[in-house]
């Protein structure tokens, strides 16, 4: 059993009296892949933002390598945990890809924004890993959604963190880019040994990714377990409030789900 990278202990969060997360607990081992699933509004994105401390003021305890997260400054946290936001149209920044990935090195910069000696190597490695080297001089707003998502992953990788949080990393991407992003995440996890936590609303994606699953409903943990145990009618119905059918893929032997409608 690998050591625990991220221990979440009864994390609760409310915005203006409206509870979004209640008593979420999970123990995430180093090097694991986790999918956070659940219906819309279950608090999946909010959980990632709490872990990245984009949202502050939550209660409960999160330990990073056994050390309480409140003891990390935001800068120290960013060297250990990186975050990739949900792809969207508000990400058309005027920076070039090279400049944007370099900004991922903020947590290492010296006074007056001076560069760190490891910057150049880290940036080059991140851009190679995410396969965005050929865009280096292009401006972000000239890229397609799929290309931009890979650039965002490269910028997060440049942070040199060993825990990667991704919010719907393949949302709105075409099939080819979905596959490319999944491949990049897989290699980050396998080769670099990073802990990857990604939010998705797609049960099939979670099962194909493998690893562990954390299912949220109405801000609370509804189910947690290995991805291959997810294909259970009762579990999925409880999490999503919808009915599912199961199909066995004749080629891979993997079990896939097809939504069937509102649960009776």
């Amino acid at each position, binding site marked *: 059993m690998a050591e625990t990278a991220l221990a979440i202990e009864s994390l609760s969060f409310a915005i203006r009296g409206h509870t979004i997360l209640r008593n979420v607990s999970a123990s995430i081992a180093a090097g694991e892949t986790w999918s956070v699933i659940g219906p819309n509004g279950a608090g999946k994105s909010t959980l990632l*933002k709490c872990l*990245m*401390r*984009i949202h502050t003021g939550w209660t409960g305890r999160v330990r990073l390598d056994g050390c309480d997260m409140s003891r990390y*400054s*935001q*800068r*120290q*946290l*960013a*060297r250990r945990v*990186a*975050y990739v*936001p949900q792809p969207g*149209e*508000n*990400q*058309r*920044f*005027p*920076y070039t890809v090279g*400049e*944007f990935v370099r*900004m*991922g090195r*903020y*947590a290492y*910069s010296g*006074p*007056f*924004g001076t560069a760190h000696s490891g910057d150049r190597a880290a940036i080059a490695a991140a851009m190679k890993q995410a396969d965005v080297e050929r865009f280096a001089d292009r*401006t*972000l*707003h000239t890229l397609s959604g799929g290309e931009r998502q890979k650039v965002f992953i490269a910028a*997060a990788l440049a*942070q040199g963190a060993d825990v990667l949080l991704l919010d719907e990393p393949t949302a709105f991407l075409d099939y080819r880019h979905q596959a490319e992003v999944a491949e990049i995440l897989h290699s980050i996890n396998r080769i670099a040994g990073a802990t990857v936590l990604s939010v998705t609303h797609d049960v099939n994606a979670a099962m194909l990714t493998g690893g562990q699953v954390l299912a949220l409903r109405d801000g609370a943990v509804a189910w947690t377990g290995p991805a291959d145990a997810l294909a259970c009618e009762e579990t999925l119905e409880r999490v999503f409030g919808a009915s599912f059918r199961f199909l066995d893929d004749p080629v891979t032997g993997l079990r896939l789900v097809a939504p069937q409608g509102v649960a009776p």
Partner: protein
Amino acid sequence: MKRYAWLPIFLLGSCAVVLCAPFIGDRPISWDALFRIRSNDPDAQIFWDIRLPRACLAWVAGAGLAAAGMAFQAMFRNALATPFTLGVASGASFGAAIGVRLGIGAAFLGLSGVSVAAMAGALLAISIVYGLTRLKRDCSAGTMLLAGVAVNFFFSSLILLIQYTGDVYDTFRILRWIMGGLHMIGFEAPLRALPFVAAGTVLLAAFVGELNLLTVGEELAASRGVAVGRTKTLVFLVVSAMVGVIVSICGPIGFVGLMCPHICRLLVGPDHRRLLPATLLFGGAFLVVCDTIARTAFAPTELPVGIFTSLLGGPFFLWLLLKPRRDAALSAG
């Protein structure tokens, strides 16, 4: 490095503007006045005691206002955010008007009472605007500009109230000062503004990395390691104090903080490591040129420079507002 190839040009250009502007005017001055510093020659006196200090004041004020505009634009992620549109300048005017009306003469930390009152007014205004956008959780141009407009109206009516209750002398002083002017004699005024603009510049230079990340969004900035709340509070405080001091000396000179950062962004790109020096040098030179035009265009009458920059800035503002948006960060959307 190629990326900084523009820097010597900006530097030389900015210095040249400050040195050339004093020769231009109602009374042309021959170049050799430059070498007669302590003579009784009227040309030399006009050059050294009147026009050069004025050009220096215009440079310091222009650089400070442009840098303030740049910082506000990064933090509100909006190209229309400036000390003027956010109501900071009118807050400072209100503070200064109170200072004039109450006749605060006492100096405080080497600053006149009017300057301190103007700084306080500037801070009050930015706190109100920032508080309103936070309350609505919305930093869009609409909310921000409406908050700025509301603050502007509010402080303008308070200024009118102060003028109404004041005597003719105070009223005229306030009115004349609100038009924005740089007609000072001697180096005392530019030297009073310089420490604040210098301190603001050093702070902004220390925060170039944070400003870059804030222009791509607060959430992303936090995920990269920026302590967002602390950074914004500190930058707001220092920049507002800088604007307060400039406004207390020169009056609310509008639109420098709107036009200069935008033009520089087109020239050197959005990276604040380059944008900050470019904006300072360009903003300084810009206000010197505007002031030179304002005092020569209708010679022998001098136009207050604030009127002239607003005449330029109004159409520029509309152009920015109507321009089709191409990218998300720092557009006027």
